[in-house]
């Protein structure tokens, strides 16, 4: 065997993106951080920015208008508004900081321990967290004030405890999801201690969501503190934004404009935190609005596909053609604006009653071709060009209209993974019945009868019980049979099966392949069978198309492909199968060599 690895290209690397670099890279996040820092600085540097004393009440200046001696005017007691804004920021930011610090200090360690070790600590702490989250926070805070007096900073510490369940839950869930990952098992096998595992592996994953949540909580804390001060339960001698709003309220009929300044400050500060949070969340999860794709795409040049000439066979095919695809091109827009081509000029044709295998490895574009034929590409996928002919009707590969009318009743689809392809909130029966009622105009009772017959036909032992069951109540093999029943329920002419047995055990696979064969023969359906397994191709298919990197490299009858493969890639694939390779001799004989 030739030296494989060094030639295989790796995917071009994106910059080593830690959390920090992702934040700096994102314009929104960066702007919001700058805004927040400016607010913070204005509060800290208040004495430098204004010479007025925020508590100095000057009766001559009561409700003085803006742009006079007082830049932003004076309030109902003659105090300078700008000074109160700047100094007030200190209170608001400090209080929020304390609440946040307490929430994190309480929530993170408890979340880590509860998530990692579980058992009794988890039960107790989860229950306590639920308890705290169910309590109306404001009332509790008010009650706390009545106990300890209007000491706002202590109150904010208590509020931090009220916020901690959110942090606890986030951390705990993060830990639990990571615990199941195999690299944690690998670390354990290497003898890495629990604390190291938590510190190195778990925290790294939980970092980003925690930062986002912290930003949101800081915002909530600022607003709550302002609310408390607005109610008048805070310390009236200290300056804060909430106090200013309270005073503005008292003068609402006389000087309503005084509402604006503290509101704007709160809005900007909390807004900056919120924007930072959402920008970061989008960067981490990728739920932004999608970018628009640019026209051209780039693609490396591959050796040309070798046409296997069918000759007379071809002419005969054309008369009985069920599906014909010509020049199909499919692409996905990349973040940088270019398009990544996944299907690059594919031709395919399937005759009536023929089982046609589409074989390739991962990245060959075989599944994308299948999705395009049904008009069901995943989000972001676009058909760039191509023509499809289905049973005599020709249409553009990208047009949705015709495809929508034939899905379900003339084309059936069998997916790969049984469990994730069933709606968990509806019974299996109702999911079978709904399409039949729509396409075949059956009454509910007639559809149910037909569904039960189908379930029996596909080999389900107790059709009635399965009809009323939910997806999570049946096994993978049963679920796949139900999906097959659904695919053939409206008597389609073409069946598109996307790796229908890959997720199943080998003995179940054999049974399902038998089922597909008998269904196909019974109903004379054309089948497009997408697979990577040549054994399956040998078992079921009449003709085969081999794909690599989005292109067709070879196609022909199943006999031709197996006996005399023409393209080097096909030859390589067939050589790679392990069926028929000699078994290894026992150890003693090897040593004796």
């Amino acid at each position, binding site marked *: 065997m030739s030296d494989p690895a060094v030639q295989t290209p790796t995917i071009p690397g994106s910059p080593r993106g830690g959390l920090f670099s992702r934040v700096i890279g994102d314009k929104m996040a960066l702007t919001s951080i700058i805004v927040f820092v400016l607010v913070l600085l204005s509060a800290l540097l208040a004495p430098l920015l204004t010479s007025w004393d925020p508590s100095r009440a000057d009766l001559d200046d009561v409700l003085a208008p803006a742009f006079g001696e007082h830049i932003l005017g004076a309030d109902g007691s003659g105090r300078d508004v700008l000074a109160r804004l700047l100094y007030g920021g200190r209170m608001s930011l400090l209080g929020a900081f304390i609440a946040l610090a307490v929430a994190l200090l309480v929530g993170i360690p408890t979340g880590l321990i509860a998530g990692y070790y579980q058992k009794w600590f988890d039960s107790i702490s989860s229950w306590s967290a639920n308890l705290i*989250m*169910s*309590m109306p926070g404001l009332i509790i805070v008010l009650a706390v004030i009545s106990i300890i007096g209007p000491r706002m900073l202590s109150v904010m510490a208590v509020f931090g405890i009220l916020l901690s369940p959110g942090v606890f839950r986030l951390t705990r869930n993060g830990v639990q999801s990571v615990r199941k990952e195999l690299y944690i098992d690998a670390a354990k096998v290497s003898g890495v201690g629990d604390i190291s595992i938590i510190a190195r592996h778990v925290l790294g994953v939980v970092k980003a969501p925690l930062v986002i949540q912290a930003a949101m909580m800081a915002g909530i804390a600022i607003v709550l503190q302002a609310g408390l001060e607005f109610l008048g339960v805070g310390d009236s001698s200290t300056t804060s934004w909430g106090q200013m709003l309270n005073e503005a*309220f008292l003068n609402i009929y006389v000087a309503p404009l005084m509402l604006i300044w503290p509101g704007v400050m709160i809005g900007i500060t909390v807004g900056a935190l919120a924007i930072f949070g*959402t920008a970061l969340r989008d960067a981490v999860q990728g*739920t932004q609005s999608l970018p628009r794709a640019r026209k051209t795409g780039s693609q490396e040049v591959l050796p040309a596909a070798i046409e296997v000439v069918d000759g007379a066979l071809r002419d005969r095919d054309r008369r009985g053609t069920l599906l014909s695809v010509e020049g199909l091109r499919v692409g996905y827009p990349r973040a940088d604006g270019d398009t990544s081509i996944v299907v690059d000029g594919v031709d395919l044709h399937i005759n009536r009653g023929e089982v046609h295998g589409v074989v390739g490895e991962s990245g060959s574009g075989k599944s994308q071709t299948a999705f395009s034929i049904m008009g069901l590409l995943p989000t972001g996928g676009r058909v760039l060009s191509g023509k499809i002919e289905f049973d005599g009707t020709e249409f553009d590969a990208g047009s949705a209209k015709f495809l929508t009318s034939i899905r379900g009743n003339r084309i059936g689809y069998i997916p790969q*993974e049984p469990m994730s392809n069933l709606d968990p909130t509806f019974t299996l029966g109702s*999911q079978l019945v709904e*399409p039949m009622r729509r396409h075949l105009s059956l009454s509910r009772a007639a559809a149910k009868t037909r569904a039960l017959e189908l379930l029996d036909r596909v080999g389900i032992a107790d059709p009635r019980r399965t009809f009323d069951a939910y997806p999570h109540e049946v096994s993978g093999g049963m679920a796949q049979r139900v999906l097959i029943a*659904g695919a053939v329920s409206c008597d389609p002419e073409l069946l598109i099966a996307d790796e229908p047995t890959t997720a199943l055990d080998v003995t179940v696979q054999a049974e399902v392949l038998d089922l597909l064969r008998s269904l196909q023969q019974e109903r004379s359906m054309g089948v497009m069978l997408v697979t990577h397994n040549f054994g399956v191709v040998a078992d079921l298919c009449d003709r085969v198309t081999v794909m690599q990197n989005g292109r067709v490299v070879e196609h022909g009858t199943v006999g031709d492909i197996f006996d005399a493969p023409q393209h080097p890639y096909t030859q390589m694939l067939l050589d790679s199968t392990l069926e028929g390779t000699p078994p290894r001799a026992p150890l003693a004989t090897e040593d004796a060599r």
Partner: protein
Amino acid sequence: MIRFFLNRLISGVVLVFVVATLTFMLMSLSGGNPARNILGEGATEEQVAAKAAELGLNLPIFERYWNWLTSALTGDFGSSWFTNEPVMSSLANKFPVTLSIVIVAILVTALIATVLGVTAAVRRGWIDRFVQVFAVIGFALPNFWVALVLVTIFAVTLRLLPATGFTPFDTDPSKWALGLVLPVAALVTGTIASTAQQVRGATIDILERDFVRTLRSRGISKQSLLFKHVLRNAASPALTVLSLQFVGLLGGAVIIEKVFALPGIGSLAVNATTQGDLPQILGLVVVMVVLVVIVNLLIDLATGWLNPKARVA
């Protein structure tokens, strides 16, 4: 299903019990001199002592707790130390006001947020951006500030809607409704914003799922796909958000009532807590927690009915 319901019910009862007990203990053990607070600075020592005895403050704490608990279970929460009005009756007068605001607010939120969130998720484009921007604004501006601005514009300047006061539903339904417009509008800006975002996120997530593609391959109608399948799957996280919003709304309503001078529990709560009026505080806390428990129970039931997998949890 029954087991699930009972489970939640028992948790709820335990919750009420624990919260009440904690509140009682914390407040009673915190020192201070309620008797003096009630009578004021000018009272003499004997008067204070007499008042303390009258309120039962000399008794050991567990006895006081037991007394309170036994009468509370019969519905008698005692009387306010400061106003002498029976706690239950003052709550019965004021709670409906707050409740009507909160319930209308949550219903309005549920409706508008669902429409906005689903549309944003399905259509993307400008409405998607709008929802995201709106979410930030709604989060950043305190709802009582929005209330103040609304009052200034609609009530003071334009004089279209009443600035203060509350008309009970039975007296005049249309006036009742008008009186609710501004308070509810102020409250829901924040909740619609964040709920819409959650709904949008949940819907996007579900639209990406495999079973949606399989359903589409069966050829079911777009409406059925969206309103029957997608919504049912998105309901669970949406309802969870709503239950959290409800708890927040209760707090928010308290503050809003000050702006609109509504005779709800807001002023009751502020006074009781600043004065240390224990029976009143306890009554308030218990009723609030019971309310939260009921709402959470209803939401849990709805979630369990919509999502069979959740019933097992």
